[in-house]
């Protein structure tokens, strides 16, 4: 009953997706596509949903069958904004099971090449945001930041700030996806923006002065004889400016 020209559905979570792929591989099904279950098939498409158990064992199985690096690569693919990322993950995993870590050099395989490019993009964007996130201090001492990245980097980014701002409470909100990450000095939790509403988001009394000082510093530190707008935009694309406070005046 399950066929190759079906679109297979999963519940949108990483574990669910991996378990689905495991079933497909076992049954030797090459899917036409894989989509989360909000997907609306068109008239010519047929979709199918297995009953999938969310078994976390699959993580270890992938590591055993390939490597930790490959699991990370797959996770980064999952966080990407790529339209057919699930199918990309499927093919990347198929090649990885065959080639193990050598897969990273098999750029002559189209799906591998594409996957690695997407992963590069996610990891670059994550790296950029380690610098571009701007927190403000709320009256209750919590640090709060809003971001609008292209890829869904919130989990990996929060993991980074968890180490850096270990002894602070912080909240990062991905405005576009309407999800927030909340860190309570122990761990962080990713929540739906609808479930999580910030009460009392007033800024702390010193916030304005600190922001003013930073903007003053920013304006001072550029050397006008070396002005180079194009170079600046190369490094700090305009699409990120609205959440970078020192750039607001120039938008």
């Amino acid at each position, binding site marked *: 009953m399950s066929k190759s020209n079906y679109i297979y559905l999963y519940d949108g979570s990483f574990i669910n997706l991996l378990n689905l792929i495991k079933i497909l591989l076992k049954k030797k099904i090459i899917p036409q596509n894989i989509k989360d279950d909000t997907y609306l098939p068109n008239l010519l498409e047929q979709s199918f949903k297995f009953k999938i158990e969310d078994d976390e064992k699959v993580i270890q199985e992938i590591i055993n069958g390939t490597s930790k690096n490959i699991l990370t690569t797959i996770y980064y693919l999952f966080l990407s904004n790529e339209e057919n990322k699930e199918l990309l993950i499927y093919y990347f995993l198929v090649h990885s099971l065959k080639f193990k870590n050598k897969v990273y050099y098999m*750029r002559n395989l189209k799906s591998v090449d594409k996957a690695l490019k997407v992963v590069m993009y996610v990891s670059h964007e994550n790296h950029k945001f380690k610098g571009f996130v701007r927190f403000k201090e709320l009256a209750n001492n919590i640090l709060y930041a809003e971001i609008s990245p292209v890829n869904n980097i919130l989990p990996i980014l929060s993991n980074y700030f968890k180490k850096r701002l270990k002894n602070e409470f912080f909240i990062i909100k991905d405005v576009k996806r309407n999800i927030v990450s909340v860190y309570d000095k122990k761990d962080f939790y990713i929540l739906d923006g609808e479930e999580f509403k910030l009460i009392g988001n007033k800024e702390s009394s010193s916030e304005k002065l600190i922001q003013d000082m930073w903007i*003053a510093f920013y304006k*001072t530190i550029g050397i006008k*004889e070396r002005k180079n707008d194009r170079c600046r935009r*190369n*490094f700090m694309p305009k699409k990120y400016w609205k959440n970078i406070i020192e750039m607001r005046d120039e938008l």
Partner: protein
Amino acid sequence: MDIKEKLIILADSAKYDASCSSSGSNRKTKNGLGTTSIAGICHSFASDGRCISLLKILMTNCCCYDCKYCLNRKSNNIKRAIFTKEEICEITLNFYRRNYIEGLFLSSGIIKNPDYTMNLMIEAISFLRKKYHFGGYIHAKAIPGASEYLIKKLGQLVDRMSANIELPTENGLKLLAPNKESTKVTKIMKYVDNNRNARFVPAGQSTQMIIGATNESDLEIMSKSASLYNSYKLKRVFYSAYIPVNNDKLLPSLKLPPLKRENRLYQADFLLRFYKFKVPDILDEKNPNFNLLIDPKADWALRHLEEFPKEINSASYDELLKIPGVGVKSAKRIISARKYFKLTFNDLSKLGIVLKRAKYFILCGGKYFIDGNNFKRNFIEKNLILEDKIYETTSNEQLKLSLFDE
């Protein structure tokens, strides 16, 4: 004077220092605020396109010296300010918590004498580390002439320490910075080099030279750099195109800072550090200055065309590195990939190797990218210059620079 006004004055005086990187250290904190990242992180980019990673400030712009090229020299009539240690901590911590910065870059004009100045700097930094448990990046300028025990104390608190050599020759120094001697600077470098470990200047030391304020040739500058790298294992030599801030008959009257020349020096610097080139490969008495039209690596290759074109599928790692447009990463990728299949031009692009320059100097499976009869100096030179022009110059070259940055 309020704290914001001080910040403006003391950042304005510090902005000409070229170094900003926050890399090379891997600090983790148990109970304090902050970490450092081996690769370094840029938090913003200034209007001049330079990365902003650290809160770059002077402790004070008061100075009892009179270096001709410096805004803060004694004889200039400018507004002076001094930060207290509490103020330095307050700004650093507040900026750091909000993720504006990776840490602090602290330099200073010289008040009273080098030891007195260093002591004040050490107090501020030690406050930051010990009272506030700050675990972010700190780069401090050591004051030439300060006592060794102070260098030792400072080195235990910071990630990176540096002392600026300022000018490539002793004559240049005598002319423009009569209070400075290069031996005072190299003494610091030597001490740091001899004592460096995980708890003493873990991210190593760097230095800076001003380019174009005196008439040294590029050969003299590069020779100085090479000797500094060899003698003291510096992480970086920074080159800072001279920007006129003072009127002085001893100084050249430039309209624009020599940015192109600065760029060539950085490129040549990379060749020394990562590409196994030596100064005489790049410059000599007959050609003591860089060709401003062509980057040093391509320039070298054009003068050694007998070694090219190189076959990508068989050239050794060292040979790959000498190909214009092929960097360390690209060379490694080629070596790994060709184990599994024979590389074509198309595969190279897929590996993410930029062929813009490289294609003129390589063969893939015995083939040149166009008719092999074109492999001639004139043709290649003309096209390299043309492509540079099309591709625009400054922004992309600076992009490349920062990608390679440590």
